[in-house]
């Protein structure tokens, strides 16, 4: 039987391995931000209000270089523009929920929760919007609090991670583990290839805008491949 609570638990189980990624990533942000001169409230302000590792690091890097406030904001928000794409992709699944519930899901919408939920929504038989929300909140239950806690630990305790370890690579490994199972049709493979080639071709563009162009082209390529294969 599928009820809302079992969906929540399934989501939590799916979210647990992300701790492996979130914990070192958050701790490194805490350490680096503190060393850059932010006080504890400011470091935690980032992690509670932004919850987006890549954008937080971009902002921090530019703050270290004393860039103007508006430039810091523009660059780090550009890194997060992909969140609008995720938001659009979730709307058909979660759109019928009350506004308060959609507002709550939006707060915990990060790369990991989105990727795990979209994989689950694709692979399982149709669920109600309430069950889909339960799964989404389930995934975020180990992810978001660990992000806060790890940031705090990094800021207060300093780095316990020995320097030189390749922990930066936890992020690509998680995303690979999530993407490969999604490549179940020719259209998905085409979209992924266009994304990879596009990001390399547009690598010269500033502030990650190349990624957005590559992603748009990849969505068009995937949709077009699907349409042609269906027409055949």
């Amino acid at each position, binding site marked *: 039987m599928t009820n809302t609570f079992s969906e929540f638990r399934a989501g939590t189980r799916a979210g647990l391995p992300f701790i492996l990624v979130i914990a070192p990533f958050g701790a490194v942000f805490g350490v680096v931000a503190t060393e850059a001169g932010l006080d504890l409230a400011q470091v935690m302000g980032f992690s509670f209000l932004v919850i987006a590792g890549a954008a937080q690091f971009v902002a921090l890097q530019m703050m270290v270089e004393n860039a103007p406030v508006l430039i810091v*904001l523009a660059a*780090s928000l550009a890194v997060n523009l992909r969140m609008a794409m995720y938001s659009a992709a979730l709307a058909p699944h979660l759109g019928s929920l009350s506004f308060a519930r959609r507002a709550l899901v939006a707060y915990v919408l990060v790369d990991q929760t989105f990727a795990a939920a979209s994989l689950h929504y694709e692979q399982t038989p149709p669920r109600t919007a309430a069950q889909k929300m339960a799964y989404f909140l389930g995934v975020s239950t180990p992810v978001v609090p660990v992000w806060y806690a790890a940031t705090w630990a990094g800021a207060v305790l300093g780095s316990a991670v020995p320097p030189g370890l390749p922990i930066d690579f936890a992020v690509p490994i998680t995303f690979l583990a999530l993407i*490969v199972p999604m490549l179940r049709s020719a259209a998905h493979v085409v979209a992924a290839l266009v994304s990879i080639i596009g990001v390399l071709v547009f690598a010269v563009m500033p502030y990650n805008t190349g990624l957005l162009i590559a992603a748009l082209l990849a969505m068009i390529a995937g949709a077009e491949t699907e349409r042609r294969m269906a027409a055949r």
Partner: protein
Amino acid sequence: MSYDAWHIWAIILGLGAGTYLLRLSFLGMIGDRPLPAWVLRHLRYTAVAVMPGLITPLILFPQATGGEMDPVRLGAALATIGISLWTRNVTLTIFGGAAVLFALHFALI
């Protein structure tokens, strides 16, 4: 860093509010209004369109090595793809990929 506390909080609050509005954007506005079939067809590919592009530079030109291609990271990425195809299990893949990453790191020091 030579900002006033006021500037730092402006960055934190601005980035937080802006990011939240991006996350809420379509989810909040569209609600359950039905979307045209062609829009849904594009949205189906959001994850496979964004994530590969997001990680490709991290795999090929990691910042930690100053953008130099690195056999440890490249090997771990290929192994992760292999483990995923073999086990078809996300959790096993993450742990397996991490194990290969650290094994290669210590083997190639």
